[in-house]
């Protein structure tokens, strides 16, 4: 009989690789290898508008990407950051109440948080377009209250885009925070209170620090897809709210300018990675995985 380690794993040489081979081969062929073809494409040039791109160390694609679409880059990351903060503010109390006050209803409440996301992403965003529409009750109420000018609107504003991003990626914030809060031993809070800490202080000094891994994971899971999204800007925004996703999508599928589109994608990936690493340093949680 083979020896097992404390986690019950066997020492083996061949068996794990046989099991890994098909799945990992698929990932190599259709995840890692495409990144290489994307990189090659980003350094290619097009002899003419309808000719196939040729690899030629065309670094100017990158400078073009930056100089032409700097505004879209900064807008994407600003919107994504705002959506992340908004999602955190909405998700935290919800996760907290479910984890600490849910009782027997915990699983049902958690299920309720996920149910809305069984409808398609586009349909949800279209529903927000209806809710925020110019003739919708929300806008009319805000106008009559004087919050919005008589001709003011919500749709086609940055606010609508950020709101859509917040909504669409909210479960990715709720679930990790819930998991982190759920793990906290309630006796720790009791201990803090026995030492004459009030509820708020106990939260600030005990609960919140212990939930940080969840906050960290949730923030990344919201920030990354939000920064690369183009659907919310397309449905809820205007020409003034285009994000980098809209540009990449347009260059790749409408303009068919593959080299510039590929360069844009690479720059985008580089910035996302830089943000992730800085964020990991700031929060001191480097064991991400």
């Amino acid at each position, binding site marked *: *009989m083979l020896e097992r*380690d404390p*986690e*019950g*794993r066997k*020492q*083996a040489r061949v*068996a*794990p690789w046989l*099991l*890994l081979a*098909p*799945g*990992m081969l698929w*990932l190599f062929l*259709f995840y890692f290898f*495409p990144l290489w*073809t*994307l990189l090659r494409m980003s350094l290619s040039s097009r002899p003419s508008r309808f000719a196939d791109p040729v690899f030629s160390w065309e670094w100017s694609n990158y400078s073009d990407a930056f100089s032409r679409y700097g505004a879209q880059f900064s807008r994407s990351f600003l919107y994504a950051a705002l959506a992340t903060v908004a999602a955190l503010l*909405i*998700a935290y109390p*919800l996760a907290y*109440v479910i984890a*600490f*006050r849910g009782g027997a209803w915990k699983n049902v*409440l958690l299920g*309720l*948080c996920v*149910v809305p*996301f*069984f*409808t398609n992403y*586009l*349909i949800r965003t279209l*529903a927000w377009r*209806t*809710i925020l*529409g110019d*003739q919708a009750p929300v806008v009319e109420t805000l106008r009559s209250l004087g919050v919005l000018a008589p001709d003011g609107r919500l749709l086609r504003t940055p606010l609508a885009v950020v709101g859509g991003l917040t*909504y669409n990626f909210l479960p990715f914030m709720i679930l990790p925070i819930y998991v982190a809060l759920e793990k906290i031993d*309630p*006796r*720790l809070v*009791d201990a803090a209170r026995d030492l004459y800490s*009030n*509820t708020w202080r106990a939260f600030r000094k005990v609960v919140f620090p212990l939930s940080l891994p969840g906050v960290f994971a949730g923030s*990344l899971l919201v920030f*990354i*897809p939000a920064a*690369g*999204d*183009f*659907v919310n800007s397309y*449905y809820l925004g205007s020409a003034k709210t285009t994000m980098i*996703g809209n540009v990449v*999508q347009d260059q790749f599928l409408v303009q068919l300018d*593959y080299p510039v589109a590929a360069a844009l994608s690479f720059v*985008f*990936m580089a910035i996302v990675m830089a943000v992730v690493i800085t964020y990991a340093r700031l929060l001191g949680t480097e064991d991400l*995985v």
Partner: protein
Amino acid sequence: MRRGRGHGDGTVTSPAGRVGRVLVNLAAAGGLVYLFLPIFVIVLFSFNKPKGKFNAVWQEFTLENWADPFKNRPLVDALYVSLRVALISMVVATVLGTFVALALVRYRFRGGQITNLLLVLPLTAPEILLGASLLTLFLEPHLVLANRQFTLGFTTIVIAHIMFCVSYVAMTLKARLRGFDWTLEDAAMDLGAGPIRTFLRVTLPLITPGILAAALLSFALSIDDFIITYFVAGPDVKTFPLQIFGQSRTATPPQINVLATMILVGSVAVLAAGTWWGRRRARRLGLR
């Protein structure tokens, strides 16, 4: 244990504490309302009789849309394509992902750590990057295809969906298998079962709920995906989300809402049935 203190909530003595408690509860309730607002609108507007082509402003109540939910042929055809894509990707991704997860939790081997990392990377990549990179791959001529390009369409969509589902399946299953008692396998082998018999009769039945959960997740991800699919679909094949996106420029028929409501109710039913089945099974096996 002082039960009276509830779950880490502390006894609320001061009026300020009581107000704080109510405020947090209100914030949570507000969060739930926010989550369900669009869903309410989607269901409500499936009963709307829109003027013109866009179902965006409330006009009047009607049951017409529900009387003929499959009226919009392109939408129904697209839904059928989506179901086929999701089913094929689910089966392939679940098999591949289960193998990967088993390798990682059952064996200790060199390269296990790096495999874990490689597995997470696709999950952290922005979808637009996955779509864009796959498109460049499909545009290049390939040796294996006798130097021809891939034809963008059903096959390329399935390839892409399997790619992002494998990681999800493997990660979900890995989490579920943590703490699994592998010595049960030793017991079976001690009793004279061969490795294959042990796997089929002991291991597989025990990990089946985890595999089913991972498969369902993969199905849901595949059927919902828009961004990656949009890049690799080509001009001719339309999945459900692609069809909605294409149509939404010129029309949003109320049948979209009807189908969406049906899908929502269907998935909630599957989820509830799955939970019920899981609990009953756990009780029968005396696991909990």
